[in-house]
């Protein structure tokens, strides 16, 4: 469903992505791991065309999305959902208006109906009774989950999760893992998840890909990744300070 070919992207003279190749099959849960600042969020933003490649292509269902006009792009985006790393909630709107935003913009549902759906999605991410709270009054973990509820509100076929469990306690993180799994099983959602959380990665992934030095250096099932022969991947998975991964000033 998603196919990334030779994707390169630089900001100024800093090459962030340097020839990324990755394929995500329909209904598959792909997890991308990699160090902070390695370009994971940048990669994810290319899939929904928030960023455009300097080189290479992003294909969705076989067609290059850089050629889409505004209409085609909106159709594509209606089929996708994205959870931002910082949640990116609209701070001029209450929680339920955030979650129901796409429904209000693109459907003729009545506000009370939208609110009912928003409450239902909020319950799915373990939140209730906060419909009328403003985002500024939420904790980081709650904001993240509201962002997640917003991403799944329109029941998209493909969801991009940028660090869904970062900042959550382990139990809440596991609730989110279960939610991601159940979305895949019940609605056969295709997903790309970015995470640092290896427990989560092993639990939700059909396959795991590691981004390092601007490229995908290894892709495999969780078993294959556990037994990897690559010293870089095994250092990351085990979370060891010593190994081939050079921790530079940019690594934070």
């Amino acid at each position, binding site marked *: 469903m998603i196919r990334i070919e030779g994707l390169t992207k630089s900001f*100024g*003279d800093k090459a962030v992505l340097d020839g990324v190749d990755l394929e995500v099959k329909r209904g598959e849960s792909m997890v991308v791991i990699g160090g902070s600042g390695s370009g994971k969020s940048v990669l994810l*933003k290319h899939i*929904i065309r*928030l960023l455009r490649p300097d080189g290479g292509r992003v294909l969705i269902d076989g067609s290059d999305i850089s050629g889409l006009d*505004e209409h085609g792009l*909106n*159709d594509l*985006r*209606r089929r*996708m*959902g*994205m959870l*931002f790393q*910082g949640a*990116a*909630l*609209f*701070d*001029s709107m209450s929680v339920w208006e955030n979650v129901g*935003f*796409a429904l209000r*913009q*693109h459907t003729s549902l009545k506000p009370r109906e939208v609110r009912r759906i928003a409450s239902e999605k909020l319950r799915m991410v373990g939140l209730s009774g906060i419909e009328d709270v403003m985002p500024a009054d939420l904790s980081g973990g709650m904001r993240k989950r509201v962002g997640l509820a*917003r991403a799944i509100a329109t029941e998209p076929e493909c969801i991009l999760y940028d660090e869904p469990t970062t900042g959550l306690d382990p139990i809440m993180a596991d609730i989110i893992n279960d939610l991601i799994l159940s979305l895949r099983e019940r609605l056969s959602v295709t997903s790309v998840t970015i995470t640092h959380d290896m427990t989560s990665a092993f639990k939700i992934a059909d396959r795991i890909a590691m981004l390092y030095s601007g490229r995908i250096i290894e892709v495999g099932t969780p078993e294959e990744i556990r037994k990897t022969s690559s010293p870089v991947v095994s250092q990351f998975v085990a979370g060891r300070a010593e190994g081939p991964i050079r921790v530079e000033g940019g690594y934070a």
Partner: protein
Amino acid sequence: MRAEASTPALLRPVEYLGAILMRPLSLAGGLVIMLAKTLRLVFAPPYNLRNLFRQLVEIGVNSLPVVLITAAFTGAVLALQSYIGFKRFGAEGLVGSVVALSMTRELGPVLTGLIVSGRAGAAMAAELGTMRVTEQIDALETLATNPVQYLVVPRFLSGIVMLPALTVFSDAVGILGGYFVSTRVLGANPTLYLNRTWDYLTITDIYHGLYKAIFFGGAIALISCYQGYHSEGGAAGVGRATTRAVVMASMAVLISDYFLSSWLFQ
């Protein structure tokens, strides 16, 4: 950095000059593009009436007190100063006309423009800038919503509607301020003063002021939204964008005022 390293020393001043010349050009280009996008989307559904209403209130209602106070005192001081000047050649009877013409043609729209630049322009740049750096604008896009349509169109419309509306109040209160000072402080005859006010004031004078106000409203909204929309670099970047928005919008008001006046004068 890279460009600097690869440019021969001799050419560096040229490059520097080029950069200085490019900045206003790329700004002008960016504004034209944003204007074109805005105009294209004004009548396109979905209509975000709630956003429009919020901006109408934000620009119009919330600016009104400052506009009224400024206009009242401007009208008052105008009467005072022109009385002092005109008395020297015995023309103090013309104070009413001077106040009315100055307010409607010039000071009403320009002062309103400057106040709205400082109040609403800063608010627009700061809000859109914050939305940019916290990825809320990206989030709008992923929710298949055009950010220009959702954010810029209602602000632009509110600007072109509310600036002339505020100007009408400003004109009226300025004339009233002049009337008050002339009759109560300077001892002018109220009936005579009012006759002088209406004698030389034509409906065209008021229209000219309102045309300018419409232009100012659109320009302020566009410049402020542009600065916010393209801000980068966290909270500090939003601060810089806000300052730039206020400075540029105020300058746009004053500079375009001259050209609009000379053009409308024909």
